[in-house]
C-alpha cells in the first residue's frame, strides 16, 4: 500500500478513536493502526472465557465528555449510558455495609447509621465537591498554556475558567487552592469522623496511582475522579467496548480507515536539519506516510520505543525518562455460578454501583505501604463491579462476572517477578473478597489475574500504568506529559500525543484525543 494520509493514529484506544473521528469529521484522511485484534485497548470488552466477556480495563465512563458525544453523534452510533441507583457499597468487617445512593436523602439516612455528625455534614460536603469539580471540569477540554512562551491565544480558552474562579469569591477560591494539593486523608478528616465513610470515599484518591491517601496531592486525584459529580458513575450499555465501537463507527462514517492487527514498529523520522515524523513502519515492514502522526501510546513508549531517544535532545530525553509510571493496579476477573452475597447488602440493588472493600483510609494506606517497598499488599484494597447485573448477556444465563480492581500490586517487585507471583496475588485478593462476601470462592468457575506486567505486555502500558503516567501534582496540567510539551505536540515535529499521557490525563474522558485532534486542526 502506498497511500498517503493526512493523519495516522497509532493505537485504537478510546482516545485514539476520538482523535481519528474528530480529524475525519474535519475532512482529514485518517488511518488508525491498532496492533491488537480488538478496539478500545484498556477501554474495551473482551471475551476471556467462552461465553464470558469483561471490560479489559476501565468500567466507568462518567468522565466521558458530552461535547464529544454530541459532536460525533455517538448516540446514533449505538452509544448508550446506564446508571445505577446505588453509587457505592462499602461492606464492613463487622458485617454491616454502607451504601451511598444517587438519592442524597437516602445517603444521609444511611450515613447516620455510622455517624450522625457525618450524616449532617454530607450535603455541605457534596455541595463543595460539586462546586469545585464544576470549576475544574472546564479544564478537561482546554490545552494547558505554554508557560515558557506565553501567547495570548493560549490563555484565551482559560479566561472563562479564570472568571468562574473569580466568581467563586475569595473564600471559595482560597479553599480550592488549599484543598487541591492536600492529602486526601487530611481533607476527608476535616469533614468526617466515620472510618467506613472516609474509607469508601478515599478509594477515589488513589486510582491508577502508587500513592496512599496520606500522600500529598492525592486530593487532586480525588477531585479528578469526581469531576463528573460526587461518586458519579456511568456505565456503557453492553460493556465498555461499545464505546470504542461507536467511536470507530463514527470515524469510519466520516471516511477514516481502521486497521487492526497492524502493530506500529516505529515512527518514520526524516528531515535535515530539522527532523520530523513522516509516517510509520509496521511490524511487518510496511511503511505508510502521513502529514502528521498521533500516538495513543504513552509518552515513553511513543518517544523511546517508536521514535527513539537518539532523536530527542538530552534535556527532553531526561524528562521522558523521569516520567513516573509505577503501575500498581491489578485486575482480577471472576466468573461465578451465581450472584455473590455481600455482608450487609440484602438488596441486590445495593450491588449495582461500585463495591469498595476499604473499611478505613488506613486500610488503603497500609495496603500501599507494601508497594512502597516493592511488595504486593497482603490485604489489598478492592474496587468491584458486577457488570452482569445490568448486562446479563456478558455471561451465560444465571452466571455473573466480578471485575475486581486490586491495589497495590507494584510493577517492580523486590523479590521474584509477576509471572511467578500472579497466582498468589489472586489468592490474596480472593481472601479479602471472601471476608466481605462469604462463600464466593465456592461459586467461582473461572479466575483471571491481570498484573501490571500483563497490562504492559498486552496493552503496551509502560510499567502497567493505566493512566499513561501517574497523575500526581507533578505530572498534571503544564507538566503533562513533560514540562513544556503539554499542548499535544511533541519535541518531534508533526508527532502528537493523543492518549492519557497528555492533558488532562487518564480515565475514559476522550479529552486527550479530542484536544490533540483540535491541536492538529489548528496548525
Amino acid at each position, binding site marked *: 500500500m502506498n497511500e498517503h494520509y493526512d493523519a495516522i493514529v497509532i493505537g485504537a484506544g478510546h482516545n485514539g478513536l476520538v482523535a481519528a473521528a474528530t480529524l475525519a469529521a474535519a475532512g482529514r484522511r485518517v488511518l488508525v493502526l491498532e496492533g491488537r485484534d480488538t478496539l478500545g485497548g484498556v477501554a474495551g470488552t473482551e471475551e476471556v472465557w467462552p461465553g464470558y466477556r469483561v471490560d479489559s480495563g476501565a468500567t466507568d465512563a462518567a468522565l466521558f465528555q458530552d461535547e464529544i458525544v454530541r459532536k460525533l453523534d455517538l448516540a446514533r452510533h449505538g452509544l448508550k449510558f446506564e446508571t445505577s441507583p446505588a453509587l457505592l457499597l462499602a461492606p464492613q468487617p463487622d458485617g454491616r455495609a454502607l451504601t451511598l445512593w444517587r438519592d442524597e436523602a437516602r445517603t444521609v439516612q444511611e450515613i447516620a447509621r455510622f455517624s450522625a455528625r457525618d450524616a449532617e455534614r454530607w450535603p455541605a460536603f457534596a455541595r463543595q465537591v460539586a462546586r469545585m469539580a464544576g470549576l475544574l471540569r472546564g479544564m478537561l477540554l482546554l490545552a494547558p498554556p505554554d508557560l515558557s512562551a506565553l501567547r495570548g491565544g493560549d490563555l484565551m480558552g482559560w479566561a472563562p475558567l479564570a472568571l468562574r474562579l473569580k466568581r467563586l469569591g475569595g473564600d471559595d477560591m482560597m479553599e480550592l487552592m488549599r484543598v487541591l494539593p492536600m492529602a486526601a486523608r487530611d481533607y476527608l478528616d476535616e469533614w468526617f469522623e466515620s472510618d467506613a465513610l472516609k474509607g469508601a470515599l478515599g478509594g477515589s484518591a488513589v486510582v491508577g496511582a502508587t500513592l496512599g491517601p496520606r500522600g500529598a496531592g492525592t486530593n487532586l486525584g480525588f477531585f479528578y475522579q469526581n469531576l463528573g459529580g460526587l461518586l458519579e458513575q456511568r456505565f456503557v450499555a453492553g460493556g465498555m467496548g461499545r464505546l470504542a465501537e461507536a467511536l470507530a463507527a463514527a470515524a469510519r462514517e466520516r471516511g477514516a480507515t481502521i486497521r487492526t492487527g497492524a502493530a506500529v514498529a516505529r515512527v518514520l523520522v526524516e528531515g535535515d536539519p*530539522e527532523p520530523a515524523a513522516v509516517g510509520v513502519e509496521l511490524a511487518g515492514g510496511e511503511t505508510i506516510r502521513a502529514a502528521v502522526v498521533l500516538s495513543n501510546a504513552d509518552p515513553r513508549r511513543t518517544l523511546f520505543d517508536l521514535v527513539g531517544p537518539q532523536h530527542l535532545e538530552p534535556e527532553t530525553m531526561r524528562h521522558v525518562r523521569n516520567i513516573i509510571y509505577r503501575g500498581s493496579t491489578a485486575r482480577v476477573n471472576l466468573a461465578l455460578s451465581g450472584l455473590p452475597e455481600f455482608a450487609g447488602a440484602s438488596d441486590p440493588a445495593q450491588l449495582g454501583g461500585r463495591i469498595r472493600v476499604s473499611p478505613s483510609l488506613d486500610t488503603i494506606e497500609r495496603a500501599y505501604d507494601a508497594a512502597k517497598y516493592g511488595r504486593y499488599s497482603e490485604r489489598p484494597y478492592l474496587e468491584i463491579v458486577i457488570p452482569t447485573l445490568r448486562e446479563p448477556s456478558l455471561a451465560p444465563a444465571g452466571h455473573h462476572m466480578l471485575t475486581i480492581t486490586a491495589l497495590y500490586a507494584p510493577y517492580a517487585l523486590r523479590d521474584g517477578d509477576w509471572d511467578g507471583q500472579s497466582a498468589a496475588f489472586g489468592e490474596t485478593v480472593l481472601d479479602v473478597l471472601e471476608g466481605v462476601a462469604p462463600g464466593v470462592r465456592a461459586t467461582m468457575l473461572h479466575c483471571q489475574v491481570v498484573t501490571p506486567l500483563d497490562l504492559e505486555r498486552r496493552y503496551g502500558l509502560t510499567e502497567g500504568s493505566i493512566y499513561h503516567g501517574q497523575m500526581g501534582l507533578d505530572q498534571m496540567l503544564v507538566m503533562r506529559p513533560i514540562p513544556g510539551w503539554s499542548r499535544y505536540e511533541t519535541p518531534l515535529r508533526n508527532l502528537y500525543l493523543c492518549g492519557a499521557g497528555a492533558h488532562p490525563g487518564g480515565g475514559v474522558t476522550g479529552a486527550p484525543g479530542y484536544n490533540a485532534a483540535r491541536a492538529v486542526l489548528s496548525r
Partner: protein
Amino acid sequence: MPLPTPFHSRTSAVCDSYEWRNWSGYLSAGLYEPSHEREYYAIRNSAALIDVSPLYKYEVTGPDAARLVDRVITRDVTRQKIGQVYYTPWCDSAGKVIDDGTVSRLAADHFRITSADPNGRWFQDVGYGLNATVTNVSDDLAALALQGPRSRAILEEVVDGIDFGQLNYFHLAQGTVDGFPLTVTRTGYTGDLGYELWVRPEHAERLWDCLMERGSRHGILPAGILALDVARVEAGLVMIAVDYVSSHHAVIESQKSSPYEIGLGWAVAPGKGDFIGRRALLAEREKGSAWTFVGVQYDWRALERLYAEEDLPPGVAGRASRSAVPVYEQASGNRAQIGHITSHAFAPILKQYVGIGQLLTPHAPMGGRVDVEVTVEFKRKLCPATIVPTPFFDPPRKRG
C-alpha cells in the same frame, strides 16, 4: 580538602613554594620554585613536567561508541583515524559550549575523552539508547604533560616501543616505561612541542622518577599551573570558566558562547550527521556570530606611559591574569564597550603584553584598534591595542 594526585609524593617533595592550588578537588602545584619564571622557560627552552592528573577522563566503549562520541562532539568522528586525537568542544542543544577537551580514538569502538568539568552524566544521557558504555576513568589514569623542545629527546630515552619520529601532532601511541604500559599523546596546553603521558596510578611515581632522572641532562623541571597559564595565553588557548562559561554553569543566557565565539569554529563540522547543537550552529553559521574571539597585542609604549603617569614602571611582567577587563571602541566619543579581554599576560618569549577575549563581531576586524582597560594605582586607564592573529607564539616544532 583537596586530594593528593598519584604524583603527590614526588610533587610535594619539590614544591618549595608551598603554593598549592585546588584543581578539580586535587592538590596541584601553582609553582614549585619561589617564582614561576624558570618553569615557564623550561616549557619554551628545555622541558617541563606538569602533573595534569586532575583532568576528568572518560572512556566510551561498545559497538555504538563512535556514534555516541559523534553525537557529543562538534568534530566528525567518522573521519577520525584510530590513533588520532581530536581537540574539540561539545555543546548543548542550543549550540552553546559545555566544555572542551581531547578525544583519543584508541580503537574503532574505544575512545578516551578528557575534560575540565565532570561530563559523565552528559555523555551517558546523550548516548541513552545506544549500545555503548561511558566509564569515568579519572581515578584510573594518572597523567603528566611533558612540554618543551627537549620533550621528544627525553621520551626517546625513557619510553620503549614508540617511534617518536612517526608520532605526529595530535596522534597517540602505546609504549612501555620500565616494563609498565603507557599511552603517549602528542598533545598539550602550551602551544609547544609536547606530549601527555597516561598511566595507571600505581606506575605514576616510577614514571615521574624515570622522566626526572633521564631528563635532568636535558634541563627538565617540574612546572606548575602558573607557568602553564602564561604558555597557554601565548598559544591563544581558551580556558573554561575563564575565557568562556560552560553553558551548564551559566547563570544567564548572555554568559554562554558558541564554539564560533571562542575561536573554535574550525572544530565544528556542521556538515556531518546529527549531533547535539547542530541545528543552532548551522543557523549561527548562516547569520553570523554575535561575538568574535580575538587576540590583542597591547601597545607597549602606551602601556609604559600609563604606568609612568603614576611614577611607576610597567607592573605587568609576572603571572597571567584571569581577571576579565572591558574593551572599548577606540577614539569614539561615547566610549562604547565592545567586548572584554578574559585572559592576559606578559608573554616573555615575545616581550609583548597580549590578551585573548571576545569582541562584538562588527568591532573585531583583524588589525583593528581598540582600547583595553588597565588599572594603575586604582585608576582606570585605557591602553590602545591591536587585534592580531592567535596563536601569538607558534613555533614550527609544535607540529614538526
